[in-house]
């Protein structure tokens, strides 16, 4: 445990040093990022030891804060999430160094460097805290650090708006967490987790606690309908920060739910239904909304919502397995969910980092303006493709393994014999299948629009590969995606202690994964074989290159290409009821039409249709209170006088 704390201290202190040294931007970036790498490496050693079944180190110390104590523990579940943070964040910070240093002179770089390290340290503290007060403290520090990173480009009004929404949404979520701890800790002397778990609770209180946890943590994870901050905050943050927000920070919400599932005792079946309902809505809504997006990072943000939906589906299957006493189903559901957490962290990190490199190189996040980048940025482009394949849950990459486990769990659940589990399992299978298909379509669309074809603007045409420093983390993450796909069986065995379930039934889950590994290797071999065959066939022949989408035109332009919007149009039409896409069309008129245009925009439907009207109503109700602050001295004194008089007469 001391080693973990030493690592966290290195993170925070190097961040502080960067704050002091911010005049020398390069030095500050070196110190902060070096500290992040070093601190993460130091902390990662005990984390990996705890993850693979070693003794769970813990630390208890008194704390003068009411209900608080400095209780820390690094069990396997904590270690799994801490590991994600400690691997992903240093990689992202390394990728971001160049981006930040390029802003030298325009912005002070101390704060972002400091908050980056603070964010990583606070996330680790969140997962090792074992006291409610300490947990909430770490949770708030995590929010504060991420808030200042999200609003880094605060000269842009949309960024300020996104930050504001993030602030409000997060605090509403945190209010539920306060409720959760008060509910569980009522009557107890401290909010230590083991006391919360040991205290007897009525089923109603436990159920309410579960709902509070789902809402409070679900806001951070980005479950629909609590996701409204996410499509704004992800694009607003600097590119490498978004990778960590999506890859690691949203997983803190999942951690909270998983942790409270272990604390609240044996779950009743309805929790599983709720989780599946949440997963179904998040997954489908997320991926359908993603299909209609044009901003690359906004698209990836909606895809994150889909993926936390997949995790929720897995947890739901696991909970049903626990509730009905089928450890095999439970281990497959929970195992699939946790495996997907790791996988999603790696592949979404990879996608956001490579998308960041692409956005840096082309100067735009609009996918409709890009194109032909696979030729200009072959390494980053291929890495993006790897991520796209992985997140579409296609073998041999890692997304396939985790979703397959959830499928298998749901299938086994569906065949248990009772009607309710059959409905439940089939709903999960149907949802996963639909989400998988739509995800594949969405990522085909994005990859096609930005990587293939011809560049649609001059800036995109001049794009080139990023520096080695910015490229290396992307490569590492792509390799991790492949390794996690091929080594899914090993990884699941390693994280088994985190499932806190009988190891005996693990064989049912790892067995199918072994076949996956064999099939994946065969697939890779086949691809290699076909590539060799192609090389052999082409050798000795003349290979000609022509413009993409040339189509025999004399003077083709890049604008005649099939666009991302055209690709998605049939699907977007199909789901137009849920998407609420806004169109503005000027039709060509007359024999010689002068102008014609068509534009679509798809804001977050739930934000526009539900939250905006509600919050506008609240605002207009509260605006009347503005009259109280009239700015007249006399009126203020009157308030004081009336209050004092009231208190005096009230007391008599």
């Amino acid at each position, binding site marked *: 445990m001391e080693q973990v704390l030493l690592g966290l201290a290195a993170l925070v202190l190097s961040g502080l040093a960067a704050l002091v040294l911010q005049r020398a931007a390069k030095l500050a970036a070196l110190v902060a990022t070096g500290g992040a790498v070093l601190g993460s490496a130091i902390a990662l050693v005990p984390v990996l030891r705890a993850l693979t079944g070693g003794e769970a180190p813990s630390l208890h110390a008194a704390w003068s804060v009411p209900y608080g104590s400095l209780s820390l523990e690094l069990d396997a579940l904590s270690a799994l999430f801490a590991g994600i943070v400690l691997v992903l964040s240093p990689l992202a910070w390394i990728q971001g160094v160049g981006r930040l240093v390029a802003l030298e002179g325009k912005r002070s770089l101390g704060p972002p460097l400091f908050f980056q390290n603070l964010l990583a340290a606070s996330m680790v503290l969140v997962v090792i805290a074992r006291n409610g007060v300490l947990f909430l403290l770490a949770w708030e520090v995590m929010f504060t650090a991420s808030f200042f990173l999200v609003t880094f480009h605060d000269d842009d009004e949309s960024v300020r708006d996104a930050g504001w929404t993030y602030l409000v949404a997060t605090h509403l979520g945190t209010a539920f967490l306060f409720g959760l701890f008060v509910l569980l800790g009522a009557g107890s002397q401290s909010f230590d987790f083991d006391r919360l778990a040991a205290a007897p609770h009525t089923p109603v209180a436990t159920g309410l606690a579960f709902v509070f946890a789902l809402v409070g943590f679900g806001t951070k994870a980005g479950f629909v309908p609590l996701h409204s901050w996410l499509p704004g905050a992800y694009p607003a943050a600097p590119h490498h920060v978004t990778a960590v927000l999506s890859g690691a920070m949203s997983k803190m919400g999942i951690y909270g739910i998983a942790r409270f599932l272990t604390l609240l005792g044996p779950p009743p079946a309805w929790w599983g239904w709720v989780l599946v309902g949440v997963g179904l809505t998040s997954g489908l809504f997320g991926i359908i909304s993603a299909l209609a997006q044009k901003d690359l990072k906004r698209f990836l943000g909606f895809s994150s919502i889909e993926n936390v939906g997949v995790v929720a589906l897995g947890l739901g299957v696991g909970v049903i397995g626990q509730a009905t006493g089928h450890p095999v189903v439970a281990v497959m559901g929970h195992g699939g969910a946790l495996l997907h957490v790791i996988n999603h962290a790696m592949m979404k990190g990879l996608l956001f980092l490579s998308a960041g490199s692409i956005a840096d190189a082309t100067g735009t996040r609009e996918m409709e303006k890009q194109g032909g980048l696979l030729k200009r940025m072959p390494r980053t482009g291929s890495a993006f493709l790897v991520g796209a394949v992985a997140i579409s849950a296609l073998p041999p990459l890692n997304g396939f393994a985790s979703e397959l486990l959830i499928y298998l769990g749901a299938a086994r659940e569906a065949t248990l014999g009772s009607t309710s589990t059959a409905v439940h399992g089939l709903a999960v299978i149907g949802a996963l299948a639909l989400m998988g298909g739509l995800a594949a379509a969405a990522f085909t669309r994005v990859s096609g629009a930005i990587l293939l074809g011809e560049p649609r603007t001059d800036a995109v045409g001049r794009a080139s590969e990023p520096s080695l420093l910015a490229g290396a983390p992307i490569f590492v993450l792509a390799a991790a995606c492949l390794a996690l796909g091929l080594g899914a069986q090993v990884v699941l065995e390693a994280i088994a202690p985190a499932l806190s379930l009988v190891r005996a039934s693990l064989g049912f889950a790892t067995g199918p994964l072994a076949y996956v590994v064999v099939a994946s290797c065969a697939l890779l071999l086949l691809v290699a074989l076909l590539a060799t065959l192609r090389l052999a066939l082409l050798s000795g022949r003349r290979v000609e290159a022509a413009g993409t989408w040339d189509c025999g035109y004399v003077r083709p332009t890049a604008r005649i290409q099939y666009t991302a919007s055209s690709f998605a149009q049939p699907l977007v039409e199909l789901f137009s009821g849920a998407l609420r896409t806004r169109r503005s069309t000027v039709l060509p008129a007359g024999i010689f039409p002068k102008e014609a245009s068509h534009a679509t925009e798809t804001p977050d439907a739930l934000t526009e249709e539900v939250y905006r009207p509600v919050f506008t109503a609240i605002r207009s109700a509260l605006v009347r209170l503005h009259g109280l602050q009239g*700015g*007249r*001295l*006399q009126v203020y*004194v*009157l308030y004081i*006088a009336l209050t004092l008089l009231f208190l005096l007469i009230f007391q*008599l």
Partner: protein
Amino acid sequence: MGFIEILLVLVIVTDLALLGASRINSCIRFAAAQGILLGVLTLVSGAEGHTLRGIALAIVSAGVKGVLFPALMTRAIREARVRREIEPVVGYTTSVLVGVASLAVSLWISSRLPLVRPAASTLVVPTAFTTILVGLFLILSRKKALNQVTGYLVLENGIYSFGVALVEAPFLVELGVLLDVFVAVFVMGITIFHINRTFDRIDTDLLSSLKD
């Protein structure tokens, strides 16, 4: 009716006169008279009255409130060259009626207020409350910063009379209150000067243009 009651009734009369006065100068004079009345009240009331401490307190408070503050304020009026009318938010007649109403409220409050030890006179508590309420009302209903200073003085007079006639007046506390008032008048004098310089008038409602 003893001497002390006569003094207290005179204090109430000055309260009402302050509410009805239409010129700044007369306002200042009434406030000064009230200050001197309270000094005398210190002398005649309670055990504190005839010790050296009591006499010193009476002289200091009467001197500061009856002579020093009025002089300061008269000077401020001269320097600021403001119009001598008060321009109240609430009219003079209404103000006097409010004063009478606050007297009634004070009488009711004093009948319900549990006291630790009996007061020197049954009129002490109502007088103190009336003076406090009238001071607050003056602050509320007058626009000119100078009137608000007099309102503040009257408010303090109320608190002072409460303390002198009721509590075994701790000398230090009284001096502390006096010092408070002195600093307040001083600060307000500076504020008046600045409001005047910025807006060419000393109406505090102009300050509302400073709000966000």
